[in-house]
């Protein structure tokens, strides 16, 4: 078998080559661009599966690097780290990417930017794969920013739409806030440790020579990056707006892969995070708060993609919670299952949007009979995310709940259980509103073509069955791979009954409230209560930010602008004006007459002579003509 390092390198480089070739050869040739991109990601997927297979049979860490940039004592090395975590992530990224690209063939058909779309997807795949393979902070940060760039390009893919352009900008700027902390954390940590290598930095921190307070601070700075990228409170505001991008992009980037980069980063740097119990408590607390907070907002949204976006935020909060309480395997397992069912939900939503031409669930209803494949697969995903036994979401969510309970955090445990209930309510509300009830009279929806429904079916298979990896029936499953010291999972009947009971209660509540599908005209016209308004306006977080930015930032910039206009520009204008006016003044003294010039020359020579004479007498000190120069 080929060298795993070469294979691992080829995984990200295939999409990169596709990206470059698309721009070089296939501009304006949609079929060629899509073919390049698809074949590259298919090849990457195969290689990633081979690598994961290798890791399953012989888990181990392979690191390969080269010296890249020697900076005096500090040598920056560049390399890849192939271990079970990166192999698993590669399979998730390439697998979701492949399915989403196939789906995009149908979804984006006829779009004027077809080839450009696929080239961006290739660039994204490359960046994300480089991110998961990185073995050092520099490469991680570079890939981190690259996926941010791809996210920007793809949210703003329909850049003629002002909302899309605005949402792209917002995503870029908001994540930048978190990335600033991330960058500072990386630099401080790496300069303390004298290396950028993950393992070496973790060893350095583990040695305990750094005061605990500093470790906590640095780890929290690193966590800032994850907060921004994974849409955790208070930097979650960009993710719902990012839904302005094409739906396959939302499925790929803003649910399954890029937003999970924050979770992946915490997992990759888990050795460093574990050095600070306080920082882990913050991770857990913020994750739990984000989970319940976003789930509550999702209850009152009417845009199908925004509901899914808040659901993503909530589930990412779950993963953070798991990592924070020490459930390393549980968090990553949930990342894996979430990638399957959330991609499925988004792609299903894409089919629905294609069929009815709107994002507003108040305009939908009764689609179940017209779009059977979409409806059934969507139902599987809804049940999976709600955590109904035995679908995949149940297994991963139960492990998180168990980890939280085992970690001895009663408050977090209650919050997590509450979120299970809320998740069931808002997801089934979405389902009933869209698929149940009666069809709108003027609508004639139709099922999507096979190129879109086949990915749905494949994903539904995974959303239903992936949980087997974490069940007690397959040995140690995914945990044996990720964390060799993890115990064999056991099925906790208590949690099973509790979480399924809550989820079922949520679905039943939803059925009673929304089971008739589209809300009646009377209900739509009713005045919403204060709690509903609060949720529908997302706790007014966006408004608060706007207010803060207007009040603080704009007044500050106004002062800076005044300073620039009057002091900086004033100085420049003064210099310019003085030269101009001075020149004008001097110009008048010269009449263009020979003798005037002769007089000035004579005066100049006399002045020079006087100076020399004074210097020769030593009146001006030695510096004018040099030491002894005047005396000779």
């Amino acid at each position, binding site marked *: 078998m080929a060298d795993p390092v070469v294979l691992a390198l080829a995984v990200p480089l295939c999409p990169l080559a596709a990206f470059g070739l698309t721009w070089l050869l296939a501009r304006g040739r949609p079929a060629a661009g899509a073919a390049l991109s698809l074949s590259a990601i298919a090849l990457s997927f195969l290689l990633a599966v081979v690598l994961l297979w290798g890791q399953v049979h012989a888990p181990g860490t392979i690191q390969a690097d080269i010296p890249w940039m020697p900076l005096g004592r500090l040598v920056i090395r560049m390399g890849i780290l192939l271990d079970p975590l990166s192999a698993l992530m590669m399979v998730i990224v390439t697998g979701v990417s492949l399915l989403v690209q196939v789906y995009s063939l149908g979804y984006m058909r006829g779009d004027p930017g077809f080839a450009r779309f696929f080239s961006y997807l290739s660039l994204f795949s490359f960046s994300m794969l480089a991110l998961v393979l990185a073995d050092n902070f520099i490469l991680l940060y570079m890939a981190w920013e690259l996926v941010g760039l791809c996210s920007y390009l793809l949210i703003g893919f329909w850049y003629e739409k002002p909302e899309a352009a605005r949402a792209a900008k917002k995503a870029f700027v908001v994540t930048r806030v978190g990335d600033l902390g991330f960058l500072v954390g990386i630099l401080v940590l790496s300069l303390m440790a004298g290396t950028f290598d993950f393992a070496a930095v973790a060893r350095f921190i583990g040695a305990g020579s750094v005061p605990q307070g500093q470790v906590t601070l640095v780890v929290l700075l690193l966590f800032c990056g994850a907060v921004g990228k994974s849409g955790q409170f208070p930097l979650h505001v960009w993710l719902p707006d990012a839904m302005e991008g094409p739906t396959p992009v939302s499925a790929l980037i803003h649910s399954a892969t890029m937003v999970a980069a924050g979770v992946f980063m915490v997992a990759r740097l888990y050795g460093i995070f574990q050095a600070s119990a306080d920082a882990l408590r913050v991770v857990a607390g913020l994750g739990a708060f984000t989970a319940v907070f976003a789930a509550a907002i999702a209850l009152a949204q009417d845009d199908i993609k925004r509901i899914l976006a808040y659901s993503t935020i909530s589930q990412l909060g779950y993963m953070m919670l798991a990592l924070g309480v020490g459930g390393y395997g549980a968090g990553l397992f949930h990342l894996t299952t979430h990638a399957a069912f959330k991609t499925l939900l988004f792609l299903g939503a894409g089919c629905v949007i294609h069929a009815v031409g709107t994002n507003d669930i108040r305009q939908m209803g009764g689609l179940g009979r017209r779009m059977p494949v979409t409806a059934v697969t969507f139902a599987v995903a809804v049940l999976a995310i709600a955590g109904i036994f035995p679908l995949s979401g149940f297994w991963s969510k139960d492990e998180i709940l168990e980890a939280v309970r085992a970690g001895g955090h009663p408050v977090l445990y209650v919050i997590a259980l509450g979120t299970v209930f809320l998740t069931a309510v808002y997801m089934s509300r979405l389902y009933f509103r869209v698929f149940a009830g009666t069809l709108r009279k003027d609508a004639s929806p139709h099922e999507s073509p096979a190129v879109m429904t086949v990915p749905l079916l494949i994903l539904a298979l995974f959303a239903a069955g992936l949980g087997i990896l974490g069940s007690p029936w397959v040995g140690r499953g995914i945990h044996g791979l990720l964390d060799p010291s993890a115990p064999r999972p056991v099925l906790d009947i208590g949690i099973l009954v509790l979480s399924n009971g809550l989820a079922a209660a949520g679905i039943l509540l939803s059925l009673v409230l929304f089971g008739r599908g589209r809300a009646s005209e009377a209900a739509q016209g009713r005045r919403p209560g204060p709690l509903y308004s609060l949720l529908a306006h997302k706790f007014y977080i966006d408004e608060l930010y706007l207010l803060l930015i207007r009040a603080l930032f704009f007044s500050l910039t106004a002062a800076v602008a005044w300073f620039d206009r009057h002091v900086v520009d004033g100085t420049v204008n003064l210099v310019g004006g003085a030269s101009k006016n001075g020149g004008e003044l001097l110009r008048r003294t*010269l*009449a*263009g*007459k*020979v*003798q005037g010039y*002769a*007089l000035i020359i*004579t005066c100049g020579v006399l002045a020079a002579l006087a100076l020399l004479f004074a210097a020769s007498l030593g009146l001006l000190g030695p510096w004018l003509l040099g030491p002894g120069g005047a005396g000779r």
Partner: protein
Amino acid sequence: MNVTLTHYLVLAALLFCLGVYGAITRKNAIGILMALELVFNAVNLTLVAAGRFRPQPDAVGQLFALFVIAAAAAESVLGLAIILAIYRRRLIVNADEMDLMKN
């Protein structure tokens, strides 16, 4: 009376100042040229005197003065030709009426 280098130099300085004064104040362009000849001659006098009063007197100073005379002759030819050309075109010889260097 013993004539020393200082006497020559003072005389040359007087001649030089006279020439410069004339060059600046004369109205007639030909007068300016004549005043410039005085300046050249002041320089020549300095060169010859300096050559004469070297510790070992030699002809270098005189030689230098000959070159200056040749250069001065060439300068006069040029200057007179310019003045003549201006006179033919504009019928003026007064330097303060010549303002071609402006505008």
